[in-house]
């Protein structure tokens, strides 16, 4: 498989370990990619608050770049996925609107015909590679490791733009992956489709911290060894602000590692802490790595 790779601002900025671990996993799987270095930010839904059309133009520009190469887009971020899916959904349903947007793109020699699909690495692995094929690359089963899934809003809503009806596996993709690596999904954890609080971090920090503390705290109370997320924005908040949030809201310590999807896969592939950038997290992943490395390796 080959993809037009759109890592997103956060993987190229505040969460470099996501970029590195994704490339490491993709290489192990033989997934080829061409990075869309000229593409702009998706707008993350924030830019769209000010100017929806501007956001759609930027995203259609990216779709057109991938279409020229005849490649599907792969993203690493729930927010990129959601915002791009929504833009794609809007222009595919409205040819007049698409034509209007294409006029703006003509000066760069771009035109979008409406054929590009956008897939998060998580979806691509399940839908294009297949979990059975993925499992063949694993060198250890993460037996006994308890993982709390945390999707990120844009990966689960709105379901029509995300095509949940057409592709039902998307609804349980993260749980399916956790089970595929041999782990256990945290039972009774109710936060998996909730908001991490990142969008209001700078607007209402008290509320944002309560969300971080509630989700990470409840997952830990329920026995989770770590939380897994396909969204680097959730990660910024749930990992980066966990020490502050836990102290402020629960009066306890930040002890729940929050890991990116490719890091979970990398652990099952037997990759090292360094290769996956796990030492770069704010909340220590040492205990998690120790637990994974203590598990038997099969060749």
């Amino acid at each position, binding site marked *: 498989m080959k993809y037009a790779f759109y890592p997103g*601002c*956060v993987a*190229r*900025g*505040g*969460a*470099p*370990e996501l970029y590195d671990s994704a490339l490491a996993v993709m290489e192990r799987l033989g997934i080829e990619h061409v990075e869309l*270095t*000229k*593409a*702009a*930010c998706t*707008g*993350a*839904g*924030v*830019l*769209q*608050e*000010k*100017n929806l*059309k*501007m956001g759609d*133009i*930027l995203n259609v*520009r990216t779709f057109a770049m991938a279409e020229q190469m005849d490649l599907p887009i792969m993203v690493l971020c729930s927010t990129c996925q959601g915002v791009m899916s929504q833009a794609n959904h809007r222009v595919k349903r409205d040819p007049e609107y698409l034509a209007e947007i294409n006029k*703006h793109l003509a*000066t*760069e020699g771009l035109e979008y015909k409406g054929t590009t699909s956008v897939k998060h690495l998580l979806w691509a692995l399940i839908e294009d590679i297949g979990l059975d094929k993925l499992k063949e690359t694993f060198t250890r089963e993460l037996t006994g490791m308890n993982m709390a899934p945390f999707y990120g*809003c*844009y990966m689960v*809503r*709105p*379901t029509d733009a995300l095509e949940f009806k057409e592709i039902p596996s998307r609804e349980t993709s993260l749980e399916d992956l956790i089970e595929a690596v041999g782990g256990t999904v945290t039972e009774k954890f*109710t936060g998996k489709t*909730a*908001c991490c*609080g990142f*969008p*209001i971090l*700078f*607007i*209402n*920090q*008290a*509320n944002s911290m*309560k*969300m971080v503390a*509630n989700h990470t705290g409840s997952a830990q109370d329920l026995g989770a060894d770590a939380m897994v997320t396909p969204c680097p924005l959730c990660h910024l908040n749930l990992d*980066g*602000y966990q*020490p*502050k949030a836990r102290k402020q809201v629960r009066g306890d310590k930040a002890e729940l590692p929050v890991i990116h999807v490719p890091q979970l896969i990398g652990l099952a592939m037997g990759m090292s802490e360094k290769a996956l950038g796990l*030492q*770069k*997290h*704010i909340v220590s992943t040492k205990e998690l790595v120790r637990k994974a490395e203590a598990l038997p390796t099969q060749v």
Partner: protein
Amino acid sequence: MPDTMNVKLKIKRFDPTQSGGKTWWQEYEVDIHPDSTVLDSLIEVREHEDGTLAMRCACRASICGSCGMKVNGNAKLVCKTRVVDVAPNGEQLTIEPMGNQHVVKDLVISLDTFFAQINRVEPYLQPSFVPEQGEYTATNESMENLLISMNCIMCGCCVSDCTVLEVDSNFIGPAALAKAWRFTEDPRDSKRDERLKALNDEDGGMWDCTRCMKCVDVCPKGVAPMDRIMELREAAIEAGNTNTHGYHHTESFYNSVKKNGRLDETRLAIDSAGMFNIPRMLDLVPIGLAAMRKGKLPPLMPHKAEDHKKVKELYERVEGESK
């Protein structure tokens, strides 16, 4: 097709008469017609299995808004939810009262929270004049747009699942904000600017929404409260309300992408907090330092997309067109 189908229910019960209130889970199994709704199966339980189960319902046609409750964790009108759609393979259904509202008994919640929120937005027309005779009229065209919010049947599903209300009971909530939008957009209302300013300035107002889309997802009537909140924000900015962190956040984001083609996270944090807001600036420092210690940026120089100049040109063309 068989005449009946078996439904397994796990219902959260609450009895306020027991000391301090007692909560427990109770399981039931009933046989119903295969076309039945979740409400039909609950009525079957109440009529034939357990007369003590308290629930609220009336129209059975998703008009009255009485039967909102959580099915497998998400708020729904149970009269509009068919059993086969939520339990296609005979899975057990988990039924709970709605969230973020006071439980009276079992599946019945008090509407006080909901209406206290609605009342905060002065949910009535405030025209500047009294017509000499007849009614306050408006053109069909000017009102058609409002139907989307007027479709609200006040069931409380959006309030139940709102992720902000979960942590902050002072948030005005999705239903009330969608209702407020209905009046700011009504051509006969004379208080548009005052309404927008109040909802912009108020603690718990329009900027506290996280944009998580839960309300859009659970609303059974397509009101899409979050989309109405986004329209309120746009209108508030247009009306000159530029004093919020939310406004600065949006502006900074918009301009960062314009300038770099990408997001400049450092700049975004500084702009959103407010460069001269010293306590909030200091608040960012430990987080930045912790990230740096772990070998992460934050990048002091923004990373730019390769063709960022083309993005800027595109911005300028689009902005020029809308002027």
